[in-house]
């Protein structure tokens, strides 16, 4: 079994807000991340899949195919978007790095032929990243 990791980048805006809280409570918990105008990051996504090496191709998955799946399922939806306003999963969930990793897992789970999703890692910046290994992990 081999783990294979592919990276992709996207840049997006977001802010942190919980509608069921007062403005004061939002700013107390989220600090400057609660600024309603939003702010942005250059995110890096690392998707790791696991699978057996195909004896003919020598691949776990076709990298071009994986790249296209990441582009279609994630990058085309998230890149140069405002996550709170334009990406459906963040109408309700706060677009934290943790929730972005979980959302990307759900976007990709089952979409990669011949391989199983192992880990989704999302870097909000080089000093901060979240990992998600699936619901049962």
């Amino acid at each position, binding site marked *: 079994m081999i783990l294979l990791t592919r990276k992709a980048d996207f840049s997006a805006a977001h802010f942190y807000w919980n509608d069921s809280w007062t403005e004061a409570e939002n700013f107390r918990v989220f*600090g400057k991340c609660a600024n309603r105008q939003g702010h942005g990051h250059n995110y890096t996504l690392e998707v790791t899949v696991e699978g057996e090496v195909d004896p003919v191709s020598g691949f776990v998955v076709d990298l071009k195919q994986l790249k296209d799946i990441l582009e279609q399922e994630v990058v085309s939806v998230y890149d140069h978007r405002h996550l709170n306003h334009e990406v459906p999963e963040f109408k309700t*969930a706060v677009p934290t790095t943790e929730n972005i990793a*979980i959302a990307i897992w759900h976007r990709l789970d089952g979409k990669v032929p011949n391989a199983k999703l192992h880990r989704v890692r999302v870097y909000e910046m*080089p*000093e*901060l*990243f979240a*990992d998600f*290994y699936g619901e049962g992990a």
Partner: protein
Amino acid sequence: MNGPIAHLSRRYRFSASHRLHVDAISPERNREMFGKCNNPFGHGHNYIAQVTFSGPVDVATGMVTNLADLDSFAQRELLDHFDHANLNSLEFFRDRVPSTENVCVELWRIFAEYPYAKLERVRVEETGNNSFDYFGEGAKIQHEE
């Protein structure tokens, strides 16, 4: 209300000096074992401490833990003591060599006290070319990365 478990990693930088030296053995043996790291005046590094925590993602906040809490904990418990310090002068290293392995063990002790999430891994990068991981005492090494 809690959602699924995620892992959150944060990197902190500190610059510190140290000298690898064991009082109980001869100066010759020290020089032989530690080489230029045994220089009597010490030397320094820009360290990076990468700490990984796990926990359920709080549905209200979307977070494993609030970064402001983690950053203030790291500032108070780690950076205030380690940054621009001589590691040999810290309590933990009075009777231990301040190797990066031992720095990992001490950082585990420090961050294991963080009350809001479970510490999973401490990685310390001494330079861009060497890094050390510690998963806690007795932990099975996770063969990943």
